[in-house]
């Protein structure tokens, strides 16, 4: 599974900084822009402009939602879409609204639709080239403002599968952990990493057409995580709870979920596992 950690060469960075720092004071008398262009290594500093079309809708001034265009110099901006959004919010339009938190792909706040594919803004690199990037909120979700969507239905579905350990018998050693073999723990790999970003559920056409009745790939992935947990004793009841025409069987193995997951998980595979257990 992709771990999302990027190694950095720490050695090269400090030396570049010191040479630049030495050059700029010498050219302090000239205009700032000139100094910048001459201080950078290599030839002249051309700006690499890129257009971003971002979905805007304001509930305070409600009209029709629109795609607003922003132009950014990629040389002056970090590599990820989230860097571009923050730059736009800081320098060009402070009213742009979006969710963000960890900036490293672990919290799942910045999930949005970038160029037609669902993903995390902090993990999606800005595509090089002159083409426009279109950023819209997660598809088929109610919009609260700009790129912020209403996730309450998604969270309620997660809550409905009772994502906690349920036992009938007390643990074998009272007050201590319930032991689990390495093999049983390995069964949970591919499910515990889910960050509930909603990229998979909002990419599933079946979820678009039945958002209230179908649980969606994320909730079903977590349902399988608790069903497969060897420490949980309510497996039969959990399976019966989702053994429903709509809750589980709206899945037609479209597998958009596996494509969309920014953490590299496969909810479709877990749903197939649940279906096999249902007998």
């Amino acid at each position: 599974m992709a771990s999302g950690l990027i190694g950095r060469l720490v050695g090269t960075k400090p030396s570049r900084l010191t040479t630049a720092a030495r050059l700029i004071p010498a050219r302090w008398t000239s205009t700032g822009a000139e100094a910048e262009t001459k201080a950078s290594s290599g030839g002249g500093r051309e700006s690499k402009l890129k257009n971003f079309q971002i979905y805007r809708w304001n509930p305070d001034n409600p009209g029709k939602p629109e795609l607003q265009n922003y132009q950014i110099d990629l040389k002056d901006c970090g590599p990820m879409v989230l860097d571009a959004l923050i730059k736009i919010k800081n320098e060009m339009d402070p009213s742009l609204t979006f969710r963000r938190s960890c900036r490293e792909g672990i919290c799942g706040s910045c999930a949005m639709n970038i160029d037609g594919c669902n993903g995390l803004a902090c993990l999606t690199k800005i595509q090089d080239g002159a083409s426009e990037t279109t950023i819209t909120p997660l598809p088929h979700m109610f919009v609260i403002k700009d790129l912020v969507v209403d996730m309450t239905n998604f969270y309620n579905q997660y809550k409905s599968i009772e994502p906690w350990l349920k036992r009938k018998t007390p643990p074998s050693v009272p007050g201590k952990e319930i032991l689990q073999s390495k093999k049983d723990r390995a069964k949970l790999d591919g499910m515990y990493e889910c960050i509930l970003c909603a990229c998979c559920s909002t990419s599933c056409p079946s979820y678009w057409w039945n958002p209230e009745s179908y649980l969606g790939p994320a909730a079903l992935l977590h349902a399988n995580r608790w069903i497969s947990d060897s420490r949980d004793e309510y497996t039969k009841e959990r399976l019966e709870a989702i053994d429903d025409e709509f809750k589980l069987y709206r899945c037609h193995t479209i597998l958009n979920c596996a494509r969309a997951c920014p953490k590299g998980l496969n909810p479709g595979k877990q749903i197939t596992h649940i279906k096999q257990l249902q007998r």
Partner: protein
Amino acid sequence: MGASKLSGMQKQVLSLYRGFLRAARSKPTEDRKRIEMIVSTEFRHNSKEVDRKNFQYIEYLLRLGTKQLDQLKSPDIVSLSSVKVVASKT
């Protein structure tokens, strides 16, 4: 031939209004009047200002109202209050 048929959305708005008034009934008398006043001014203001065809905004207000109603229904909540904010040009 009688009153015109109400659309589904209009029925939702009315049932939300009814829900608020019913929730207000369960609160103490003074707060009840305040809740009814706030809710009725809000609904009347929106019914005049909001365009009938602006479905996205009406649905947004309905969802917002439903969430506020769920909060109000809880027995811990005692009353509603309202503050007027002058909207700045964004």
